[in-house]
Structure formats: C-alpha cells, structure tokens
C-alpha cells in the first residue's frame, strides 16, 4: 500500500515570459490511484500535465518515473526515443479534443490497433480481436469497427480515444478535461466508463479538470491550483467538503451542488 510512488515531481517551476505558469509544484502519484488537478482556466493545470508527461521541460525541478522493473527515470532527461516508447506503451494521454489523438482518416479498428502495431504486433487477426474487445469495453457497437471516426458523435469519439489509449494496458494515463465539451448526458456515460475502466488494478491517472463534480466522482486525491501553485491538496472529499485555503473555498462555493 505504501510502496514507492510511480511518478514524483519536485520543485517544478516554469515561466512564460513574465508569467509564472508553475511555481514550487510537488506532485506524487502512486500505482492505481487517480489524482485530480483542479483550478480555473489559466491556473496552470494543463501546463502541469504537459510537464508531468515530459512534453514540456520545466525551468526548475524534476519529474521522476518508476518503471515496472523499479528503475527510476528523470522524465526530462530521457532520450527522445525512450520517452516516445513510454508514451505509446506504459503511458497514455487522453486529450479534451479526441481529434488531436485520433486519425480521422483511419477506421475505428485501425485507431485502436495502432498502438499495438507501434509496439510490434504483426498479427492482423489478433490486432482486430483486441480492437473489437476494446470497442466493446467502451460501448461502441462492433459493427462500427470499420467506420471512419468522422461519422462518430463527440461522445463516441472520446470513448474511441480512450479505447485507443488503454489498449496497451498503460500503468499511467494523463487526462486533460476528458469530459469537456460534451453534453451533460454524454458526460455521465463517459464518467461512468472512465470510472470502471481505471478502477482496475494498476492504472494510475492524473486528471486535469475544472469540473469539481468530475473530480469528486473519479479522484482519490485532489490538488487545487491557483496561479501556478498547488494551494491545497489532500483526500478528495476532505478538500471539497472542508476546504482550508481561501481559493478552494471560493472554488467550492462557486459550484452548484457538487
């Protein structure tokens, strides 16, 4: 239970021009845990996600990742090929806009199978079977396997992106506003799906959201960001029901019955 952290960030700092995007940020993530990062637009939460996932190098501080063999890697000192391999196998990234991640000119099945093929899968039948299985898990009809994503609704696109990401059984998934831009009813279905998919052992998630209700439903722990700093962090229900920091109190009181 208390074992070593999967991902550990210390003293992250980053400035865009004169604007501090991140300041003194520490984050720890343990296996099979979901951490929500909440805050209003511009608070630095998406920047933090980009830095944690190695896509952006901070001015100060470091992010360390513990691989399945127990070796610790400095994410920003990793050679590009190693980081890239990590991103398409052990890690996953779910964007708010699924079009950023999906290949819109490639069928649903091809989209789900791509990460397997990138990992070296070379058996068509196996790849197709895995794609069918995952489409089922994200509640996309098997008959749609050869359809192009452009014929899919927004909610289906997001579910397809999730299938594409989880097909390689990543240990760590970064999610940036996965329910943003969707209708409320579609959101509910997606949340439920994410909840059940990541509740399986070993998937750890860093979830960025401005939606407190989403954080409450999904996350074990929560970190509240304001102007590039984490102003409060702790158990999700404790932070939301008994907020200590003035900004968290403001954030929670601004929400209609979260």
């Amino acid at each position, binding site marked *: 239970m208390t074992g070593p952290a999967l991902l550990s960030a210390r003293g992250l700092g980053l400035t865009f021009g004169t604007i501090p995007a991140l300041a003194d940020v520490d984050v720890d993530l343990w296996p099979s845990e979901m951490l929500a990062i909440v805050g209003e637009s511009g608070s630095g939460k998406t920047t933090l996600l980009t830095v944690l996932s190695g896509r952006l190098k901070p001015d100060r501080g470091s992010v360390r990742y513990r691989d399945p063999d127990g070796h610790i890697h400095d994410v920003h000192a990793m050679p*590009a*090929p190693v980081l*890239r391999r990590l991103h*398409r196998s052990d890690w996953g990234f779910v964007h708010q806009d699924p079009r950023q991640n999906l*290949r819109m000119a*490639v*069928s649903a*099945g*091809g989209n789900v*199978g*791509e*990460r397997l*093929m*990138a*990992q*070296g899968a*070379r*058996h*068509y*039948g196996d*790849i*197709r079977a895995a794609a069918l299985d995952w489409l089922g898990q994200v509640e996309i009809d098997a008959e749609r*396997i*050869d359809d192009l994503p452009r014929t899919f609704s927004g909610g289906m696109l997001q579910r397809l992106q999730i299938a594409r990401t989880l097909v390689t059984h990543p240990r760590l998934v970064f999610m940036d506003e996965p329910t943003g831009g969707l209708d409320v009813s579609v959101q509910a279905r997606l949340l439920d799906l994410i909840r059940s998919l990541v509740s399986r052992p070993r998937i750890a998630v860093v979830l960025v959201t401005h939606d407190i209700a989403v954080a409450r439903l999904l996350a074990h722990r929560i970190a509240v960001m304001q102007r590039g700093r984490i102003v409060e962090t702790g158990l999700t229900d404790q932070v939301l029901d008994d907020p200590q920091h003035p900004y968290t109190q403001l954030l929670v009181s601004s929400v209609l019955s979260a």
Partner: protein
Amino acid sequence: MKGYNFAYLDEQTKRMIRRSLLKAVAIPGHQVPFGSREIPLPYGWGTGGIQVTASILGAGDVLKVIDQGADDTTNAVSIRRFFARTAGIATTTATADATVIQTRHRIPETPLREDQIIVYQVPQPEPLFRLESSRVETKRMHGLADYGSMHVKLYEDIARFGQISISYDYPVMVNDRYLMSPSPIPAFDNPKMDMMPALQLFGAGREKRIYAIPPWTRVTSLDFQDHPFRTINAPYPCGLCGATDSYLDEVVTDDTGGRLYVCSDTDYCSRRRGAAE
C-alpha cells in the same frame, strides 16, 4: 557534344551528388537531401534519375533506359539519346549488356549482376507521405524507426478489401532499419530487390532526395503474420512469348473487348521469342 560538359551536369554538381550517393549507400534506405538542379525535362519525367545517372556514368559505360519495362517508349528513347549525345557513351536495350540501367516503374526480369547499377526514378521518396504530412514528423519517425502507423495503412486495406491492396510502390524495410519507398514499381518486383547483387540507386528530382540499397542487402516487404506479402500478376502466360514468370501488361486490341496480356519487359519478351525461333 560541344558546349556541354560530359553527361550534361557540371563536375561540381556531379561531385555533390556523388557525395550524397556515398552517404546513401552507407545508410541503406535513408533519404539523403541533395541540391537538385534544373534539368531540361519536366518534373515527373525522371529529373532525379537523370542526375544520378549523369553523376555515375563513365566513358566506358553502356546505358539502358526503360519506362514501364519498355525500351521503346518516348521517355526511355529521349533519355537514352540525351546521354548518347551529351556523354558520347554506348547504349543498349539488352539488360545483360548494360552497366547502368535507368528505370521508371520496373525492374528488368533478367536478374542483375554485381557489375551493374540500377537507377530508379522516384516521384515521392517518402513512404510515410500519405499518413503524415509533416516532414519534421516523418524525419522523427524515421529517426526513431517508429513505423507502426505504416502497418495501420496495411490493416485498413485488409479490413476494407480483405487483403493488402497496394499493387505498386509497396513499402519495404531495408536492412531491417529504414522504411523505404521502392518507387512505383509493381509489388511483383519487390522480391527482386532483396539481396540483389547490383547496386540500387534512387533519385527524386522534385523532392530533392537520394537513397540507395547496397548490393546484397536484405529488403523485406511489410506484411502481417497472417496476411503475408504476396505478389499479384495476371493469371495468363504472355500472349507473345508464352512466359509465365514475367510481369504482364494488359493491352486492349480492338473495340469489342479483345485483350492481350504481354510481358511488360520488352527486352525479355523479344529475347524469348528470338530464342524460340
């Protein structure tokens, strides 16, 4: 020919191209940029191939040029005559007699030897071109040998058509490292590239890229374990020479649906007919 340097290009340009060729041979399948020159020929007619040929020709070389396997088409005839006039070298239509063969879209049926060089004309050197439009990204993908997306294309083919439907320019892995476009040769010719004794050079004039396969290099066509690469050819013998092992062109012979299947390699076909008589 007076007023022109040997083989048209100036020596500095040839030297520059040879340096690119050396690098290309040293890194099999890797695309090397070069300073492509203006050639008195439209793009798409073999400006890349001509520059490569011009840079490697010596006074003693014997040149053969084919277009879709034929020695007698306009493009093949003009390029052959171009070098006959600007370099004063001998030309031939016989595959076995040539030391340098420039080709558009075919590999001769007669197996090539160690003392021969084949020069391919290439319209689009980037095999990932249709999947990824960004050059920066394709360079990165080559650098990291990140070729999973190419298999996505093959997957899509099988999902849609039940088989891999790429019939020409079928992507290959060279020396188990670089993904390479073989130029628009039919997939039928792909196996000939594998462990070929002759040096294979590729020139793309408009795209300003040169790449190469050294002799005796492993070249494999992409496929799936359960959908292995296989060549497709018309299920007939050649209507002229009766060959069953050669790539066939379909020729419409009349207005009533008459068809003839004949060897695309005209030298191979006429030689077989000559031997039979």
